[in-house]
């Protein structure tokens, strides 16, 4: 196992560059795949995981960066590329057989073993590639047997890392196995389910830290696209949230346009902040901010201060270039009452503020119940 150890070390060493490259090329779906943080071999597993997710993005790139592309996860065409990569890199050949040792549940080892188990040589991989896309029986059986084999190999594995890796890899391997089984199901029918179940029951006990995603009917079921699907769902969920935040985005559909809108909105908000700070900087030295104002402001804020969106008070002669966004933002922030119109607000405001500070107030009946309410509270 000295060679194994050295192989592992080499692995790690090379993985350093690979990680950086691959990681930059992928987003991680933490729930489904292995975590992004460094695991075994100094996070050399990342490329595998990320490969599964970034399969869309030009496998060749990733392959060139990572040293041990997972052929199963990549497309068929990519596999030849990756295998070529393997061939070129002699060190990898040493590593590949080692990998199954480190963690029985690892997706990679699973893949590798499912290829015709234990890729002691690359030809096995190639064989396995075709095998994988062929009848389930092979993979189904392999699912069970390699697991046992892997377990044995794990014990053989010299490195203490294997223990950690096992834990890490178990969950992902589990899912990936399930995914593979589901894929088989989709291809062949229901009967596979039993096989899959057996495999699963034979699988490692630790499934806890894992998000099991049920593949829906008609949807792609290999682990690669499942991870992608989960990620896409999360992203679309967040996009929906953002859509609510950004005014005027309800009609827009499509990620690209939404993103544009969001970016524009954020830019406009930042510009507003800058503009306001400029104004405040100009105004400031003439005034002293004191606690009274602070208190009144607090109350006004708690009342859901719908500020005037249209412009500055007449005192400051400037035209705030507030884009329509600002109006939306202000009006959409629900205070206590109905959204106020900006102009009458302004009016009432000035009077109210002056009243507040002079310990007198003019309750303006024109619709600013919030404000008058707050001023009453003040007194």
């Amino acid at each position, binding site marked *: 196992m000295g060679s194994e150890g050295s192989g592992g070390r080499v692995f790690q060493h090379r993985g350093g560059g690979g990680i950086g490259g691959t990681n930059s090329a*992928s987003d991680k779906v933490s729930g489904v795949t292995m975590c992004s943080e460094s695991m075994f071999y100094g996070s050399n597993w990342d490329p595998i995981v990320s490969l599964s997710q970034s399969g869309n993005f030009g496998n060749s790139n990733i392959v060139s960066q990572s040293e041990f592309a997972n052929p199963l996860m990549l497309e068929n065409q990519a596999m030849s590329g990756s295998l070529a990569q393997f061939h070129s890199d002699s060190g990898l050949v040493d590593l590949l057989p080692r990998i199954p040792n480190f963690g029985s549940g690892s997706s990679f080892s699973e893949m590798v073993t499912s290829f015709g188990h234990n890729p002691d040589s690359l030809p096995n991989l190639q064989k396995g590639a075709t095998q994988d896309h062929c009848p389930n029986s092979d993979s189904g059986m392999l699912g069970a047997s390699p697991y046992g084999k892997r377990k044995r190999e794990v014990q053989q594995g010299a490195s203490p890392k294997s223990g950690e890796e096992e834990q890490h890899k178990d969950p992902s391997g589990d899912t990936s196995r399930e995914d593979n089984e589901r894929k088989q199901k989709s291809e062949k029918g229901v009967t596979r389910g039993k096989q899959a179940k057996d495999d699963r029951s034979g699988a490692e006990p630790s499934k806890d830290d894992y998000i099991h995603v049920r593949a829906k009917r008609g949807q792609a079921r290999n682990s690669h696209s499942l991870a992608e699907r989960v990620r896409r769902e999360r992203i679309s969920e967040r996009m929906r949230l953002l859509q609510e935040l950004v005014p005027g985005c309800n009609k827009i559909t499509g990620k690209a346009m939404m993103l544009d809108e969001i970016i524009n909105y954020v830019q406009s*908000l930042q510009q507003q902040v800058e503009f306001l700070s400029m104004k405040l900087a100009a105004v400031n030295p003439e005034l002293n901010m004191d606690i009274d104002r602070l208190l009144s402001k607090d109350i006004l804020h708690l009342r859901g201060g719908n500020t005037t969106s249209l412009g500055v008070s007449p005192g400051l002669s400037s035209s705030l270039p507030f884009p329509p966004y600002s109006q939306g933002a202000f009006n959409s922030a629900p205070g206590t009452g109905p959204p106020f119109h900006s102009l009458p607000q302004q009016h009432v405001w000035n009077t109210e503020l002056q009243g507040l500070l002079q310990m007198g107030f003019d309750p303006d009946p024109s619709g600013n119940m919030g404000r008058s309410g707050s001023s009453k509270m003040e007194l």
Partner: protein
Amino acid sequence: MAMNFHQSAIKTRFAVRFVQAMKRLNKRRGVTTTDSYKRYRATRAAACASMASAVGPQRAWSRAVLSKTKRRRFQAISRKRRLINPRRNLGFGQEEDLRGLVPGGKGMEYCSLLSETAHYIRCLQAQIQVMTDILHHSSSLN
């Protein structure tokens, strides 16, 4: 609404901090009072810092802003993190832009970038409201 609750809490916290910062700024006789550009810069920095401080270290973007102002330990940590987890950039232009806009966005996953953006937008909205309030207060007092 939960968001409203969050908004008003953030607003008060920000308002307090910002006003305190502005007071301090005013008291600083010297360059800040004479040089309007410097004062503008200082005001803007105070606004951003107070906002981030009001939010606290719970969000990635506020951490990034705070580390920018504090500039010591956090920078080292965030730099390290970036090295270990460089994120994929689709390079379509939009994602990069968003990452450039949201503080600390460069080191995030796309998913977390989106949620950070949502929180950041809400805080920006609150900040703008508070600052306009302050502006109106001060202007009306004159």
